[in-house]
Structures are given as structure tokens and as C-alpha cells.
């Protein structure tokens, strides 16, 4: 009964991974003959400043994304867990960005952030009329913000649901002890959301590591190399420079980093819990 799932996953996900591993040891331009390369692609990639920068940018992007998305989603999620009418309305509106494709979001923000014809020129606020996507110092932060715009709604939902599962007796008891809202937040809400935080952060981390679509359409990796993260570097190396061997090395690095992060985060909490459950069943 598990066969169809295994076959589909095996053929279109596992087999290609071995293909990537094989390709990382050959020279191939997608057109001519395939020749054996040994570890050439690996040493080349390791010494290439562009790829090293891409790896560093990927780490930076991931950290910034988590630092931006996690507190905002947590705050909004906890707030929206309240039952007032207008909060329900807010929750409805907050959901909207989830409906947009990355391509749609990127196209919108490109137009909106255009220094000459975008919102900055409309509001006549010098603060907003920055060269957002053209300044190498700013572009990465703009990308982090736009990614946040897309995904904070999703994580807000997770936190909202998590908060609603906290028994309200805990709050009542603490109020009897004279705890204020700030204390309650730190002593009850946060500890009780432990697993929610882990789930949400894992998804954020793995998601940011592999971010491609939005950056591809929004900046194409520029200005210069300011937003050329690893997945984009891989794509450009493979499908623009036609260096399939080098691109495969980068792809493998992506897989390894992704696996390491999700294994690491799972080890800390979630999976061990799930696995022990499965062992018990």
C-alpha cells in the first residue's frame, strides 16, 4: 500500500538526488560530451568567491528571516488568539498574502519599490524614496521584508492556534497571584508555545534556505551579487552559464545544509517526540 508513494517519491525525488551526486563529478555544458572531472567542480566551487558569498548570503538571509518573522508572527498570533470581533476581522485580512504566488508578490513589489515611479515618489517621503532594490546594502533587507510579507501570515496562524490551546486556567491562576500581562506572556504563553515555536522556526529555516522564486523575479540576484543566494547561484550556474557539474555541487551543498538543519532542529525536539511515539505504536 505504501508502494505508489514510495515509487513516486523515489523516482522524482531520490533518483534525481543521486543524479545530482553523479553530475557533480563530471564536466558537462548541457550540449557536448560528458567528461569525468573528479573533484574539480568541488574545488572550483570551494574557491569561487561568488559561490562562497552565496553560501554566506544564504546563512545571513536565513538568520534575518527567522529574526524578523518569528517575533512578528508570535506577537500577532498571540494577539489574534483573543476572541474579539475586530480581531477576527484582522485575522481574515492578515491571511490574504498567503493567496499570492511568489511571482505575483515579486512583480508587485518591483513596481511598488521603483525609485522613480513607485510608492516612494507618491508619498513624497524621502524615507520611502530609497533606492530599495538597487542599493547593495539595502537589497537583502528588502528581500527579507518581502519574504516576511508572504510568510508571516502563515506563521501567525500557527501561533494563533497554538495560543488558543493554552488552558485559560493557567492565566486565571497567575492573575490570582497578581501577575501582569507581561509576566503572563513570559511565564505562561511563551513556555506553553514551546513546540509551536519549534515547528514554526523549523519551517521558516528550511524555507529560507531554499528561497528561490521570489528573489529570482524580484532582483535576479542583484544588485551585483547582493542577493545571489545559494539556490539562485545554482540556477544561474546551471541554466545561464551551462555548467551542470558546478551547479550540481551547489545543489548538493543545499541538500546537505537543509538536511543538517532539519535533522538538528528535529533532534532538539519535535522528531524525537514523534519517533518515540511511533516506536510505541
Amino acid at each position, binding site marked *: 500500500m505504501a508502494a505508489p508513494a514510495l515509487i513516486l517519491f523515489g523516482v522524482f525525488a531520490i533518483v534525481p538526488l543521486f543524479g545530482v551526486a553523479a553530475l557533480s563529478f563530471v564536466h558537462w555544458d548541457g550540449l557536448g560530451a560528458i567528461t569525468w572531472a573528479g573533484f574539480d567542480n568541488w574545488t572550483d566551487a570551494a574557491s569561487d568567491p561568488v559561490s562562497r558569498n552565496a553560501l554566506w548570503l544564504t546563512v545571513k538571509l536565513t538568520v534575518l528571516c527567522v529574526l524578523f518573522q518569528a517575533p512578528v508572527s508570535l506577537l500577532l498570533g498571540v494577539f489574534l488568539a483573543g476572541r474579539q470581533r475586530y480581531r477576527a476581522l484582522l485575522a481574515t485580512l492578515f491571511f490574504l498574502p498567503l493567496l499570492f504566488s511568489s511571482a505575483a508578490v515579486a512583480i508587485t513589489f518591483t513596481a511598488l519599490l521603483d525609485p522613480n515611479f513607485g510608492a516612494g515618489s507618491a508619498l513624497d517621503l524621502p524615507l520611502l524614496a530609497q533606492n530599495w532594490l538597487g542599493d547593495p546594502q539595502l537589497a537583502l533587507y528588502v528581500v527579507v521584508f518581502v519574504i516576511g510579507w508572504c510568510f508571516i501570515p502563515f506563521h501567525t496562524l500557527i501561533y494563533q492556534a497554538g495560543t488558543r490551546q493554552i488552558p485559560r486556567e493557567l492565566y486565571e491562576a497567575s492573575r490570582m497571584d497578581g501577575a501582569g500581562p507581561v509576566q503572563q506572556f513570559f511565564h505562561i504563553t511563551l513556555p506553553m508555545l514551546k513546540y509551536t515555536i519549534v515547528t514554526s522556526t523549523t519551517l521558516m529555516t528550511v524555507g529560507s534556505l531554499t528561497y528561490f522564486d521570489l528573489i529570482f523575479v524580484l532582483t535576479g540576484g542583484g544588485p551585483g551579487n547582493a542577493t545571489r543566494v545559494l539556490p539562485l547561484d545554482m540556477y544561474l550556474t546551471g541554466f545561464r552559464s551551462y555548467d551542470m557539474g558546478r551547479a550540481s555541487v551547489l545543489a548538493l551543498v543545499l*541538500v546537505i545544509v537543509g538536511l543538517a538543519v532539519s535533522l538538528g532542529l528535529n533532534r532538539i525536539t519535535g522528531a524525537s517526540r514523534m519517533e518515540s511515539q511511533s516506536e510505541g505504536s
Partner: protein
Amino acid sequence: MALQRNEHRPNVVGAAFAWLWLAVIILPIYYIFITSLRPREDYYAENPLSWPANPTLTAYQRVLENDFLRFFANSVVVTAASVAVTLAVSVMAAYVVVRSRDGFGRNLFRVALLGIAIPIQAAIIPVYYLIVQLGLYDTLAALILPSIAFSIPLTLLILTSFLREIPESLFESMRMDGATEWRILLRLVVPLARPALATVGVYQALQVWNGFLFPLVLTQSAETRVLPLSLWSFQGQFGVDVPAVLAAVVLSILPMLAAYILARRQLVSGLTAGFGK
């Protein structure tokens, strides 16, 4: 279940922040909407955030004349087929994981756990050549098959954690009645797992509907173009016609918006039930 504290002491920080975030969310959406109504020749002349002086639907007309409905239909086919197959094969696999007594189920679960971390980007080059060799290049199947493969791990995990909560006694009593595994799956597991199936189905539908990389690499012609890619190519094709590009954006989210309005509760509770544990 309500958090009483909120009714006694208003959460000022949270409220201020929520309203601020609302502005952040709404501004781009407002911008998309008004710009799509702006006449092409006024785009560079008018204030980008003002209501158009001469609102018009001609941008929508230009988009619809450019095969938009076909891209739309392609997206529907790819999304529906991917989600249906993903759910079918994953619920079968999840059943095996939950019921198996040997190491097989546990290993299957571990593979799925690792599978979540495999980025689509990493596998794209071999997937491309695999699809070419299978003779599927530039067909809708070329999008459906890999989309299913990469949706399986997460779907399997969520369904598995849901199925574990079905009481053992239910399985036992059906087995006593002589039911086959298939019968148990269809009569017991699927009906009970309906909320989880809806959840993960919605989530994967969003993923596939908005997917960009597979269509970018695995298809080429207008016959097989799906919505997100069409937005990108509209951008090249319409050039300075920003209102048309944004009208296409509006049209591309309409079905998701309709689904959201019609089935908001299901969608939201589904999404949160899946990940909120």
C-alpha cells in the same frame, strides 16, 4: 476558551502592532488593485497611490485576450491532479506507517522526515533530464509528477500524526468482522482522516498553484503555461504595461480568494490543525 485577560486589560502593544501590520499588508494589495484599473497611458503620469482619475477595465481585457484563460485552466488541472494523487498515495502510505509492526513503517517515516528537507531546487537539473527522457517535457504531466513527489513527505507526516490518534479498538473491531486492509482504509481511515486530508490538501494546493520553478524549467510553450509563469512572461511581453501585469496578478489570485471566502473556516482551521501541534 477565551483568554480572559484580554477582556480585562487591553493588549495595547499587540493592538498597535496589529494595526501597523494591517497597513503593511493592505498597502501593496491596494496598490495592485488601483493600478490594474489605471489606464496604461496614465501609469507614469498619475500619483501611483491615488485612485485613478479614469478607472478602466481595459487592462483586464488585454490580459484575457492573451490566453489567460488557458493558463488558468492549466493551473487548475495541474493543481487538482497533483493534490488528488498526493492525498491518495500518502494516506495509503500513512496507513502502512501507523499499522506496521516491523521496522518498515518506522523507516518509511524517517525517509519522509528527511524528504521534507530536500529542496526542489537541488533536484531540478536531473528532474529536467528525467522528464525529457520520459518524453514528458513540456506536458502538464511533467509538472504533476514531480509536484506529487515533493508533496508526499509533508503530507505523509501530517496524515501519520493524525492517524495515530485513531483508537486501536476501532481497527480491531473491523478486523474482527473480517474486513480487509483496503476495506479498513476506505471505510475507517479515510472518513476519520477527512479533516487532516482537507488541511494538507489545501496546503499542497496552495503550493502547487503558486509553484514557479517546475513550470519554469519543465515546460516551454504557451499550451502548457501555468499562472505564476504567465505572470512572469506577461512582464516581459507587456513591457511598460504595468497595469496589465497587475491585472493579471489580480486575476491569478481570484480563485484562491473565492476559495478563501467560501471555505475560510475550513481552510484556516485546516492549516493550523496541521502545523499547530
